[in-house]
């Protein structure tokens, strides 16, 4: 299962964040939110750390199997230490 995040500046320190979760080329869930922060990196981080986990919690039938990059990294650290 993959996900894509696109942050687009729509105003001063306001980002439109579009996400798309797909699996084997099939789109499973798309979403859009707006975040107030200075940079696209922060908007992306919000999407990955907050928006996507919330969507996974609210749409378990669609994207329960979604694993986020930071979760994989944390899992890797746990297994290697």
């Amino acid at each position, binding site marked *: 299962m993959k996900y894509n995040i696109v942050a687009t500046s729509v*105003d001063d*320190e306001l980002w439109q964040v579009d996400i798309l979760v797909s699996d084997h080329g099939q789109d499973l869930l798309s979403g859009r939110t707006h975040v107030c922060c200075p940079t696209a990196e922060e908007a992306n981080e*919000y999407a990955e750390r907050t928006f996507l986990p919330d969507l996974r919690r609210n749409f378990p039938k669609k994207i329960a199997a979604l694993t986020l990059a930071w979760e994989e990294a944390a899992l890797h650290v746990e297994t290697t230490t």
Partner: protein
Amino acid sequence: MADITQYCPRSGRLIKEEGTTVNEGNMLEAIYNAVVVNKNAGVVLNGSFARIRNAPVVGVKTVTSTAAELFAGASRLANRYLMAVYNDSTLIVYWGPSGVTTSTGYPLLPQDSIVFEFDPNTATAIYFIASANASVRVEEQA
């Protein structure tokens, strides 16, 4: 053709432009024109809501120290007329327009709720922020 809605003296009797009193024939003609010819006799209540027409959308969301738009699903429900938010956390969360901060936002106390009513034809984003992660429950209706 006289516009019988233009002249309405204190007596309540409708007077035509030339000063004569509107008779029953004029009234029937006006009603016919409104209903049949112009089809503008109906009252359109844009933005009104009286009952649920679609299934509500619900969700549990996290309010963080970054101000972000709040809604129940994966994106703002199109044509929503109502959004209810229940603060399920132990923190005060704050709401307002984009750029809202914990210093400027309107507070929603823990275990308290708020109902936002919207014009369904005007998309309006509501932003929430908190001092740390706070869980809220959100419901939208369109």
